[in-house]
């Protein structure tokens, strides 16, 4: 694959990047919704009141930041109104998992991933050897996070984090901590201010680490004295492998596998925390349709139905949970896992995503939560976020209504609850 390939790859990567951005935006929006940044000021001041960052000095000092470094990067601080806007905008629509996965696992991204697997074969083999994490998963995270390094974000990490530290009162301690970690990265010369750019939330580099994750998990794999996740692919991928290993990755096990459920299946078994051995699933009539399933019979596997009973079904290992530690959204972990499989040459998903899976708008999500609450099911408040508690409430109401107990917030269910608001 020589230089001729490189240019092709760049062009394709750019195409992929364009698609990625929509996906990334969704994830960012979802992450934002999770963090509930309602407390952020919606005003857009051109500059922060002087002295706001000065309050950070004692904490920064205590963490070994020198006065000169502190002043160099905070003295001319101007609030980034775009970051405030991105952090406060609430997503009206969240993409259904099928569309989300399809947007991320494109033929282009698969093909580039395969080319990069060949190009970095030696490095990936060495990382696999050192951390026990499957190379295809590393490539997939790279592909999903930054379209293989072509879309790593262009905002100053320090400015974004300083903006959030000042504007987001509710999570200020979190952002301050990230900001100080970012300053430390610069002080240590791990990267230069010009290359220390990333997402609005301060994630940067090939695999989009926030500064605290960098501090804890980044590694200098090529032994050049810098943990360079911005310019060195080996460092970035090894850092990701290190992060996954710390998050509980188990060497040799897959992330999961698509399965076919038997007819008459009781979907309540997709509730979280009900792992069973592969033997048990098979004995109950679950089928493995794809070849080369490297699964042990005694391995605990959790059933996941990303789009409910009508969509594809997966049995996942604890490695799926490790990917969730990177980004806590089922659709994200599934996109990473499936992209990894596709890069490794495995087949596309067998089951179709439900075409009728109309994503609920924000108002509809809140309405569903209100209707569930009225029926006596605790959704943990009405916030438009379909989290674990809301999904548990959905399961409970599905049980009462004798519907397939899949915990999926479908439009159908909303209509049913509207028609029959109280039991």
């Amino acid at each position, binding site marked *: 694959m020589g230089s001729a390939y490189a240019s092709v790859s760049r062009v394709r990567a750019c195409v992929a990047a364009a698609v990625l951005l929509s996906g990334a935006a969704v994830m960012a929006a979802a992450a934002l919704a999770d963090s509930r940044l309602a407390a952020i000021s919606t005003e857009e001041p051109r500059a922060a009141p002087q002295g706001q960052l000065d309050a950070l000095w004692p904490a920064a000092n205590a963490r070994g930041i020198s006065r000169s470094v502190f002043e160099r990067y905070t003295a001319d601080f101007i609030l980034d109104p775009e970051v405030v806007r991105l952090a406060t905008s609430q997503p009206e629509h969240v993409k259904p998992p099928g569309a989300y996965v399809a947007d991320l696992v494109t033929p282009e991204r698969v093909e580039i991933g395969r080319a990069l697997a060949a190009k970095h074969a030696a490095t990936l083999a060495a990382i696999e050897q050192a951390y026990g994490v499957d190379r295809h998963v590393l490539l997939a995270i790279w592909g999903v996070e930054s379209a293989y390094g072509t879309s790593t974000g262009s905002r100053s990490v320090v400015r974004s984090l300083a903006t959030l530290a000042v504007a987001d009162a509710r999570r200020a301690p979190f952002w301050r901590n990230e900001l100080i970690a970012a300053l430390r990265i610069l002080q240590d010369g791990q990267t230069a201010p010009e290359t220390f750019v990333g997402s609005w939330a301060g994630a940067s580099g090939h695999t989009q680490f926030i500064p605290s994750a960098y501090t804890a998990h980044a590694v200098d794999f090529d032994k050049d004295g810098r943990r360079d996740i911005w310019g060195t692919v080996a460092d970035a991928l090894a850092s990701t492998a290190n992060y996954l290993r710390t998050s509980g990755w188990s060497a040799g096990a897959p992330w999961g596998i698509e399965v*076919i*459920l*038997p007819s*008459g*299946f*009781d*979907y309540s*078994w997709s509730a979280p925390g*009900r792992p*069973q051995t*592969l*033997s*048990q*699933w*098979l*004995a*109950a*009539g*679950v*089928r*493995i*349709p*794809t*070849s*080369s*399933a*490297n*699964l*042990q*019979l*005694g*391995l605990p596997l959790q*059933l996941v139905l990303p789009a409910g009973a009508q969509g594809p079904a997966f049995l996942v290992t604890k490695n799926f949970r490790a990917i969730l530690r990177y980004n806590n959204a089922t659709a994200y972990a599934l996109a990473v896992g499936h992209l990894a499989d596709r890069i490794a040459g495995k087949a596309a998903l067998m089951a179709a995503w439900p075409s009728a899976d109309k994503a609920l708008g924000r108002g509809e999500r809140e309405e569903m939560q209100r209707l569930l*609450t009225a029926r*006596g*099911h*605790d959704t943990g408040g009405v916030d438009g976020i379909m989290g674990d508690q809301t999904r548990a409430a959905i399961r*409970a109401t599905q049980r009462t209504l004798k519907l397939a107990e899949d915990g999926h917030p479908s439009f159908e269910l909303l209509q049913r609850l509207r028609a029959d608001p109280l039991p």
Partner: protein
Amino acid sequence: MIKTVAQPKAVGLRPRCHGWRRVALLAPLVATSVLLASAISALPALAQSTEAFRQFVTELWPDAQGMGVSRATFDMAFRGVEPDLSIPDLVLPGQAKEVKGQAEFTRTPAEYLNVSHLTRLSEQGRALLKQHAAELAKIEQMIGVPRHVVLAIWGRETAFGAHRSPHYAIQVLATQAWLGRRKDMFRTELLNALKMLEDKVRTRDTMNASWAGAMGLTQFMPSEFYTLAYDLDGDGRKDIWGSVGDALASAANQLKVKGWIPGQDWGYEVRLPASLNCLAEGADHARPMREWIKLGVVRTRGREFPADIMDAQAFLLTPAGSYGPAFLALENFLVIKRYNMSDLYALFVGNLADRIAGGGDFETPWGSVRQLPAKSVEQLQERMQGLGYSVAKVDGKAGMNTRSLVGAYQKANGLKVDCWPTEAVLTHMRATTARGPEPAAKPDHDTTRGRSGLGVR
């Protein structure tokens, strides 16, 4: 093909929760797993399951070999064996049909302690008391467990040998070890059963067992056969199938090893004073007999408590909440319970022993209560756990701990206190938990987890 056989009559078929020993040679379950061959995916669902079972058996071989089982015995034992998915206590995720659980936990006290059943057994028991007087005297003398209790175990377990064990032990133990709720325990039992074949204790044709793999007149698990069986007649064999003396001595030996206190009863039916109700139930609220008496507890039918047990620890037992008789149970009740972890089982054995000894029926009749399905009991236990009640175990079984906590919940929420788990209580809990835990909904007593004895030895 996987056989679908009719559900066996559940009388006396019991998995043991205690009394098994982990074999030192046993490797952790997963460590020996073989990778599932890619070929498996080409097969239809049923064949995938069969193939997975075949691999499970293949993986079992090294451990069996480590126990001294020969390849020939191993192959003979498993030839033509398919898993039996119709037996209880398996986990078949997603299968809608609920396999009936142990009779001890699916029947109401009135159903389980069926009077005509008890009467019939006690009549048979009294005849057997005479017929086996010599063996029973020898057992009392050598092991120290009273003859009536030993006979009652025999009666409860197999109706004095009348119940045939319907399953092939290797088939049910392999199924349980492969898909059961307690795989590790059953794997150990399976290996011991293979060893029994190797040692020619039984042949493949005579190795009949309950769905849980219990065998012989007094239903011993394979590991219990090796650790607790007793050769009373001195013929060099521990024949719990053909020798009544051996089988009864083995049962007595098991009770002795599990802590039987000679000279004490299992417990007594009592009348409670107005100041006591089902809230005081459970081994966690044990106190000396003399204190119960001081509180106003009296024995039924005008009888006196034996004078020599005043210092013995006793606890209140109300198996049907406030809808039936109450008992004061002694340590030996818990010893019987260790034979099979169920209050109703221990009560059945205790009452049958009393009847064989000439005692009679309970004074207070059982009320008509309904047993909540296991799934609902499980939900109820989870809800109570969420509310801060000290639920010992979420297991779907409405035992002493669950009943008394239900009572505590009822009291804290101003409901009628009957300590009986019902759909109505569960619905009330759902509403409570949906509103969030209430400060008032705290149990008024704390229970200690995992306690299994009264500490009087």
